[in-house]
């Protein structure tokens, strides 16, 4: 596979018969991604979006060459659906939903690590390799194929940034939504490693928010290969108030916007502080990476 999703993606949609899930499935098919089956307990034997529905992931695996699961079920059944996919041998599971209990997120993160499975989510639009495959519900029109890899904690922000980049002729290799929950599956560092090892990616842009300590880990990655830059929102956010994602709470002094930006810049990572700083910064980044913009 390229990074996570591409032409070899064979997708099972868990929860496919739900109203939103069937819409998302059709949108994914319209993008050219191959959906091979659906899994919905108790609805095996039906057809949805032109694909067979099974009661169990194991049955769907036996009948198809599925290698990826998109889990579109409510949060109180999500843990079991994801564990079922992992137990059946799926190596990439994407759970876009929000509302996953933190203790379930911890269990799933640990399981994914033990079984060497990539678990993307929760609370994310998913993963897209423009022009190749889409596993999620990001708006297709915002994306174009190119050489910039992107890792984002915010879905809405990734749509806006990719729309601007695509309009400016700067395409994307793979856009990975790691999600905005405090405990997530695929960590920021692992997502970066995937893009760093991808020969179709020349440079990487990270879309960050205030809160959390992962941004500091970026500082230690400079010099590992591909040029890296960050777009950090939250400059105007008031100290001490929770804004949106549970992870986006500024508490101690070390977490302020200014301190994080300075730390990144001092370790050689360019930081865009407003949306309109992104394009010029990315052009310089890709030039350093030695590739054309795509």
């Amino acid at each position, binding site marked *: 596979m390229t990074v996570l999703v591409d032409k070899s993606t064979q997708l099972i949609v868990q929860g496919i018969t739900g109203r939103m899930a069937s819409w998302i499935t059709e949108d994914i098919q319209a993008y050219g991604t191959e959906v091979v089956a659906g899994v919905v307990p108790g609805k095996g034997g039906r057809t949805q979006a032109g694909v067979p529905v099974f009661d169990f992931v194991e049955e769907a695996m036996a009948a198809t060459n599925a290698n990826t699961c998109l889990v579109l079920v409510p949060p109180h059944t999500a843990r079991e659906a994801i564990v079922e996919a992992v137990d059946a041998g799926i190596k990439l599971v994407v759970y876009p939903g929000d509302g*996953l209990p933190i*203790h379930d997120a911890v269990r799933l993160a640990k399981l994914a690590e033990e079984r060497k499975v990539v678990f993307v989510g929760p609370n994310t639009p998913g993963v897209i390799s423009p022009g190749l495959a889409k596993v999620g519900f990001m708006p297709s*029109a915002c994306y174009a194929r190119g050489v910039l890899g992107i890792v984002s904690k915010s879905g809405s922000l990734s749509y806006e940034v990719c*729309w601007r980049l695509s309009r400016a002729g700067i395409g994307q290799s793979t856009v990975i939504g790691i999600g905005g929950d405090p405990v997530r599956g695929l960590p920021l560092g692992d997502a970066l490693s995937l893009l760093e090892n991808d020969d179709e990616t020349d440079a990487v842009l990270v879309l960050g928010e205030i809160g959390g300590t992962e941004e500091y880990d970026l500082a230690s990655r400079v010099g590992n290969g591909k040029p890296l830059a960050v777009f950090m929102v939250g400059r105007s956010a008031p100290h001490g108030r929770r804004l949106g994602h549970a992870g986006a709470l500024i508490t101690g002094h070390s977490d302020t916007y200014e301190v994080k930006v300075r730390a990144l810049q001092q370790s050689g990572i360019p930081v865009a502080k407003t949306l309109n700083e992104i394009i010029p910064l990315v052009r310089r980044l890709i030039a350093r990476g030695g590739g054309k913009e795509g």
Partner: protein
Amino acid sequence: MSQLTEHLSKSLLAAWGLPIPLSESVRSPEQAVTVADRIGYPVMLKVQLPVVSRLRLGGVRRAENRDEAHEFSSTLFNSSFDELQPNSVLVEECMSVEQELYLGVTCNDRHRAHALIFSAGGGAALETHGQALNISIRPDGTLPTVPLRHHLQGMSLSTRAQAEVIRIAELLVRAYMASEARIVEVNPLGITVDGRVVALDARVVADVNALYRQPGLAALARQVAPRRPEDLVREQSRLEFVPLGGQIGLISGGAGMTMAVMDLIEAAGGQAACFLDCSANPTPSGFSSAINLVLRQPGVRSCLISIIGGLTLVDKVAVNFVDLIDAKRPPISFVFRLAGANAGRATQVLAQAGFKNYETIEEAVRAAVGTPGESAAS
């Protein structure tokens, strides 16, 4: 996140075996006196509010006698702490404490593992105290006690107190794991002059996403009053709302983009009236609640509606807002930037109602910051 008050936290943890001081929750200064008389002076008077740093906010007083119990509790009942006024005050026996410790159980988000945190010198000193001991909880939910035992041996604690601290650490871990909480914390855990170990304060923060399967904890969470306005809004209409005091209303989708737009508003010389993320409820009723919230913010003169739809079809969003604005006729101007799925159709819908759908967020922000309060609709 859902924070229980001290009293509710102590009740929950006492049921698991946590030793707590003698106390009773009261709802008036008269009740405070009755209880204080019964417990015996001096007593501590502590506001029961889901706020952090009560001490720093003046929400904890010590009363030496009946007059002080009445006077101080009256003041507490009539004051605000971080914008919340207490419904209840906890009247508690004063403990004479020689040493203070910190014990907390939470999930280390970065390592994605539950851990016990222990520190000597609890209370307000925690933030400045460097050397916290961090013990990962085993996958089976139990606490490895050997690292804690080694650590306690190096401190000046009696053997009995050490054993008691370990017992308390284990029960806090059990309570945390069983209730799937976000944080379970005793700060400070006090060692009295006669060697007793007692929790002077306790805090349980529930995970709202787990409350559906934690009936006991959910029942306690429902008892927390008063609640922050933004918590009530979140519960009632599933909008994420934080008032910010500016004049530019903002209705947006997605926390990241909402923050990016707030930054742009500031850069354009304005200030957002609120952070308002309606991505969890992009429906007519959600948008209606959103408009109402914006209109309630003092000094609002315009409202920017910025939504990029992935799952959300923005032509439907346009129809919803046009209908709502037509029905409510709010006395402020509305500026739209709807992008993403079905954006083209959204532009048509808005144009028919006399609104422009700005192509870029920068243009929309400039329009919102620039326009004083006339309606943009023809």
